[in-house]
């Protein structure tokens, strides 16, 4: 599946130490600037059978990394040292294969509209539906490319990118290679007389191909899988439209039971905004768009493409952690709308300081599909007389299927009542088909109502108190939840937080548990240190529709972040 990662790490480390020692001195390396950041995230583990926290033999996990970036003129180079001793529970055990290493290093040259990177880099074409290489540390996700990237703008308004490389797979590299090209034309920059036009138009196109050797299988496997995408963006005054379509040729893989159906996806987003008012409507439809550099990869590993989330990224605990939505690359169709309106301050409704009202909805269903072959027959790798092309199913990209995946209707009212008191009130109604989106086996959708009161009291100069009262009503799964949080701030350095999640409505009385946590944090300029102790509920953590399971835990959590 993967090949061993090369180890230029010692060389790079030595280079950086040399840079550091010469920093500020006279010599050929004079003028080199070094920046970076550092982070440690550690947890200790106590067994807690009630919440399902296991006895972790190593008793603790520590994830840490440090980025170093050295720049001089048009040149820059960087590296990231990572260590997992061992990985924090919930992050892939694959990180623990090598306790310390340098999985990310690069050298870059940028001059005269030319930008060349060798080594590791992150990249995104358009919305990412065809290619997005990125790092999301909270998810333990890093699909950085390793190879060569060239960006060039021959004339103003034309932007070209080309790259080759393979992807990071924990401490190894994908065996599949990626070759990609992207071009974008901004007509307003290209045509001089449109430079100042209110109407702004750009178009772009991408082509991405992966090469992966055929493994042991009876099937005729396409070793080169190509994908293309076209996009356009139009802005006029406060109005804008963004549309992107992506198509992928036959890409049999473990996610789709090795069918040869092409994949496709479309994303259309329209926005209108003016002072105090904004509205957005986004529609997305996806069919068979698992696109990875290894056809047998699973979970969040080795994705070439990223399918943007079509649901609001909630920030409140109960809405975020209990029934979040995970994007379904196999197939989904949905629409999302946002509206924000600021009622003028001084008006009857707006009050002395003004009031902001924000509404949002998301409706996501299965695609309308018709099955031709079932997964058992497909997995058997036998000739299918009724489906000789192994397309598996047919789908209509424009039609909602019958299965509800997710509904989210929410409204938020944010009002400052006085100089010392501000209140945000939120109501959320969610319907979650967790069996599909989170892999549960409930056999029914979860219908939940969530109410939130988020108050900020300014007690005195430098002293503030933030409170969050949250409640979830649901008759399904684990029943009702209550959440309370108090956060005392002594600015600019100290924050003390206590919070508790209480599953008082669990149908099983033994599982009506509290999940309390206390935390103290110290912030000084670009440095932050926090120490917490408490219970962590087993659940799902999602960022942008990409999720990872979070195991139950009981113990201390220490977090240190610093930039320099």
């Amino acid at each position: 599946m993967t090949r061993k990662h090369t180890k230029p790490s010692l060389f790079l480390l030595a280079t950086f130490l040399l840079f550091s020692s010469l920093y500020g001195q006279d010599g050929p390396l004079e003028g080199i600037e070094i920046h970076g950041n550092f982070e440690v995230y550690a947890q200790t583990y106590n067994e807690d059978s009630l919440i399902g926290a296991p006895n972790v033999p190593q008793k603790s996990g520590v994830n840490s990394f440090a980025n170093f970036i050295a720049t001089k003129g048009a040149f820059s180079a960087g590296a990231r040292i990572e260590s997992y001793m061992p990985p924090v529970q919930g992050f892939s055990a694959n990180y623990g294969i090598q306790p310390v290493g340098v999985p990310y290093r690069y050298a870059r040259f940028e001059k005269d509209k030319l930008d060349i990177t060798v080594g590791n880099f992150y990249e995104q074409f358009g919305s990412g539906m065809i290619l997005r290489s990125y790092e999301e540390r909270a998810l333990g996700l890093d699909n950085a490319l390793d190879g060569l990237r060239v960006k060039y703008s021959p004339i103003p308004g034309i932007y070209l990118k080309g790259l080759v490389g393979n992807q990071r797979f924990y401490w190894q590299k994908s065996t599949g290679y990626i070759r990609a090209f992207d071009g974008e034309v901004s007509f307003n920059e290209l045509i001089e007389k449109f430079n100042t036009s209110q109407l702004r138009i750009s178009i772009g196109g991408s082509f991405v191909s992966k090469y992966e050797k055929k493994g042991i299988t009876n099937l005729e496997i396409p070793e080169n899988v190509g994908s293309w995408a076209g996009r356009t963006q139009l802005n006029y005054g406060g109005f804008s439209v963004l549309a992107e379509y992506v198509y992928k040729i036959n890409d049999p893989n473990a996610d789709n039971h090795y069918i040869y159906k092409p994949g496709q996806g479309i994303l259309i987003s329209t926005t209108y905004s003016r002072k105090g008012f904004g509205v957005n409507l986004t529609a997305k439809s996806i069919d068979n768009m698992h696109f990875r550099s290894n056809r047998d990869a699973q979970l969040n590993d080795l994705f070439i493409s990223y399918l943007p989330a079509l649901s609001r990224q909630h920030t409140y605990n109960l809405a975020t952690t209990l029934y979040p939505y995970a994007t379904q690359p196999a197939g989904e169709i949905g629409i999302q709308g946002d509206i924000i309106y600021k009622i003028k301050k001084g008006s009857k409704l707006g009050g002395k300081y003004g009031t902001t009202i924000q509404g949002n909805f998301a409706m996501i269903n299965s695609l309308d599909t018709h099955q031709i072959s079932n997964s058992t027959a497909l997995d058997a790798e036998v000739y299918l007389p009724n489906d000789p092309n192994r397309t598996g199913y047919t789908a209509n990209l424009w039609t909602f299927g019958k299965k509800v995946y997710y509904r989210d209707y929410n409204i938020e009212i944010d009002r400052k009542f006085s100089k010392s008191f501000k209140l945000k009130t939120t109501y959320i109604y969610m319907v979650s088909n967790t069996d599909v989106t989170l892999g549960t086996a409930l056999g029914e959708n979860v219908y939940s109502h969530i109410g939130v009161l988020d108050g900020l009291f300014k007690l005195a100069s430098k002293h503030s108190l933030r409170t969050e009262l949250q409640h979830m009503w649901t008759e399904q799964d684990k029943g009702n939840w209550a959440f309370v949080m108090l956060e005392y701030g002594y600015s600019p350095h100290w924050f003390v937080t206590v919070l508790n999640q209480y599953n008082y409505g669990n149908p099983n009385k033994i599982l009506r548990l509290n999940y309390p946590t206390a935390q103290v944090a110290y912030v000084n300029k670009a440095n932050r240190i926090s120490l917490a102790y408490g219970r962590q509920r087993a659940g799902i953590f999602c960022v942008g529709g990409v999720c990872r399971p979070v195991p139950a835990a009981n113990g201390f959590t220490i977090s240190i972040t610093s930039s320099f």
Partner: protein
Amino acid sequence: MKQLIILSILFTLVLSSCDYVNIPLEAPIPAPIDTSTIDTSVTNIGVDANGYPLIDTAAVNISTQKVFVEEFTGHSCTGCPAQSDKLLNLQADNGHEIIVATYHEGIFAKVELPDYPTEMRTTFGGDLHSFVEQDIDAYPSAMVNRTVFANFGNKYVFQAHNQWEGPIVERVNQANPTISMGVGAILNNDQTFMKIRVSLKTEVNLSDEHLLLVLCIEDSVIAEQKDGRLDDSVYPHKINTEYVHRHVVRSLVNTTPGLYGETVVPASGISADEWINWELNYGIPDNVVNAEHVIIVAAVFNVTTSEVVQVEEVHAKHID
């Protein structure tokens, strides 16, 4: 200019990188199904007004009682293919006087990924296997006419060819059957249903209750099979992923559940030379991969002895 050359090279690399596959897996060579032999004992001479096959009563086998062999096997059973081949040879050597139904049941029939993904177990096969499991010492095993053979170790279930050959040979070509039987099965055009008719003729006066069991069998199913005779270097783990499974039982056809089927001759009996018709418009089950490979097997049991008194089969066909 240099930059444009680099980008052009990358662009060319990308554009030339698409492999379109039209036929991922070639159709296997037509399965070795010998339908002509299967149909010789019964002839469909057309359909009645309701679309059910008509049985040519003049062509029905009235001279012998055929032998019903029910085999238990599994896709991860290393020694099963060799034994099954011997059973098939025995069947061929005896002019298809032997009718075989193969149940994939037991520990070797479990679906185990990634090597054994194909589910060939059935509800009926599972029930029958549970019923006789205590008599199964190894796989493959087979029952012959569901008879206990006093002269063959008082056994009901026989392990492998060495054991089952004797009882089968003993029962082949037994003359003067108590029941003669013809079977017909007509597939509809979209291969979702078939109209089945079983016509029974009593050759003697019957004083016992008799049951009719009808099974849907798919012949020549292509799926994985471990086979100890294979070369590991050609077939990893000795698994042939394109093994041709013969006579795979897919489902019970009778609408009344039961290991012996449903009553066709009442306990009060019936006199000789009577014809009994059994019909069903049967929905082809989802586990059938190719409806044109379906064989309908009908077996009649004497309730008093619980033994098979006649068995017949027919290959389902379209009416042109």
